[in-house]
């Protein structure tokens, strides 16, 4: 009884909040409605018994949207509810394409004869995920680790302004470093 109600409420919240991202007129509202959409999907995944993935989705996406909001404000500058923003191009085509895609996907969902369920869920879903990652799917885990590390480095290189030569001088000998504001551990 409670399950279908929860499902539909969360589904409606997820889609509406997702649509609100492109309808509201402030950056903060846009990013936090995306966060709401993610929280709703995270809870839906919880309903589908994948506790770990569901909670991790909430955890990551709220954090990410907090950062996202900062970037939005930083690069666009937007007073809350002050400036109605409309920054669309090709609105009509985009709308047509996305509606087309939805119709296509929906038709697929409804028409494909989905096979019956194979096997039952493991007793401890989270432990099964851990065993999977550390056992047969170890390759995925190591690949993910590598990709993440590369992302961190690449992101910093792309975004950083000052290099160590700016901080420590051309011979890298200047101590303490020449920073606009001293850091916490006195490097």
């Amino acid at each position, binding site marked *: 009884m409670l399950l279908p109600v929860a499902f539909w409420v969360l589904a409606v919240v997820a889609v509406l909040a997702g649509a609100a991202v492109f309808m509201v007129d402030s950056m903060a509202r846009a990013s936090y409605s995306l966060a709401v959409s993610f929280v709703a999907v995270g809870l839906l995944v919880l309903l589908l018994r994948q506790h770990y993935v569901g909670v991790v989705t909430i955890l990551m996406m709220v954090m990410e949207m907090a950062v996202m909001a900062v970037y939005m404000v930083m690069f666009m*500058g937007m007073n809350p509810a002050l400036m109605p923003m409309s920054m669309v191009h090709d609105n009509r085509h985009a709308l047509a394409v996305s509606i087309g895609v939805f119709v296509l996907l929906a038709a697929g969902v409804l028409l494909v004869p989905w096979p019956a369920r194979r096997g039952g869920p493991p007793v401890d879903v989270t432990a099964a995920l851990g065993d999977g990652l550390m056992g047969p799917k170890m390759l995925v885990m190591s690949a993910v680790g590598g990709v993440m590390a590369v992302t961190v480095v690449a992101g910093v290189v792309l975004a950083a302004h000052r290099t160590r030569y700016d901080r420590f001088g051309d011979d890298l000998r200047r101590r303490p470093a020449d920073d*606009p*504001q001293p850091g916490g551990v006195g490097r």
Partner: protein
Amino acid sequence: MGLTDAWGRLAVRHAHVLVAELPGYWMTRVAVERQVLARGWRLARSPADADILAVCGPPRPPLAQSLTRVWEQVPGPRTRVGVDSPRAVLAALDTAAADLLDTAAQRADGRDRTAEHGGTGRGGRRGGSTPDAYGHAGHHEPPHGIPLAAGGEDRDGLEMDLLRLRLGPVLAYWPAGLVLGCALQGDVIVDAEASLVGVDDATTVAADAPVTDDPRRFAARRCDNAVSLLGLAGWDDAASRARRIRDALLVNSDPDRPARELDRLRRRVGRSWWLRWSLRRLGPLDGPELARRGLPATAVGDVRDRLLAMLDRAADGIAGRHPAGPPLRAPVEALPDLVRGWDVATARLIVASLDLEPLVTGREVSRV
């Protein structure tokens, strides 16, 4: 009715007071602070937090306008009292407490404000965005009368909005009468402009005269500045200690206890590695730079050095050794350079660390 009254009395026993100090009335402010804390009241951090606005000294334009703006932001039930001398404090605070309990008057006040403003307070000081950044954002009218911010390159080479913010004249732990108009990017001060308001000619004339011949008052002022600096560093306990020493210096005649307490505080502050970590390397000044800016040689070092020196000078004052050299009053010309490039928190620490003398107008009754 009985319940409402009891409720009101409980609330008023825990009132928060926003203290606005006018130039030349620091002794009055000190007396207000002492009485406020003795009643179990608290000092408010912002107008929104306050029930009572206590104005120390007679406001003249343009400070009167600033105070009116602050007063508009106090949510209510609210009351405003003017205190002109340390002796008037007790009576003024009693009046304030009675005013807060006067439910009928407070209701009338609330009605008037709703009628006038359609809301309470106006804290909006933030500039907005540039619609030009994305050419076709239809509205170019500044909404709500808030002018839009202009952009500028920040210290990381990113173009950021510039935000104008005025520090002072009514701000906790801030030198009275000083106004610092800042241009901020994020919370980094990219440009600043200092001025003094509410300071008349009498002050300027008196500026070269020694502040006081009384070494205890000299020490008390050092302690008061230490209160500000420790409070800004977020160490409320140490700030409270410095405040107690200050009050003891001004009220009691026994010199031993404050001297002992000050010695303990000095040792505690010197020992705190956390404070050292927090304050070191901030606002460093060396000898030649001080000379160039017309600052006293005692301000050498970083914020922490200056804090320790401040406490040492206080100890000297208690011991009766009067320091040499002219007193340092708000160095209007030097300030912008000192705070430029730092964030607001650091800038405020730097200003507090300068250990400024109060501006004197020669009218304040000098006894607490």
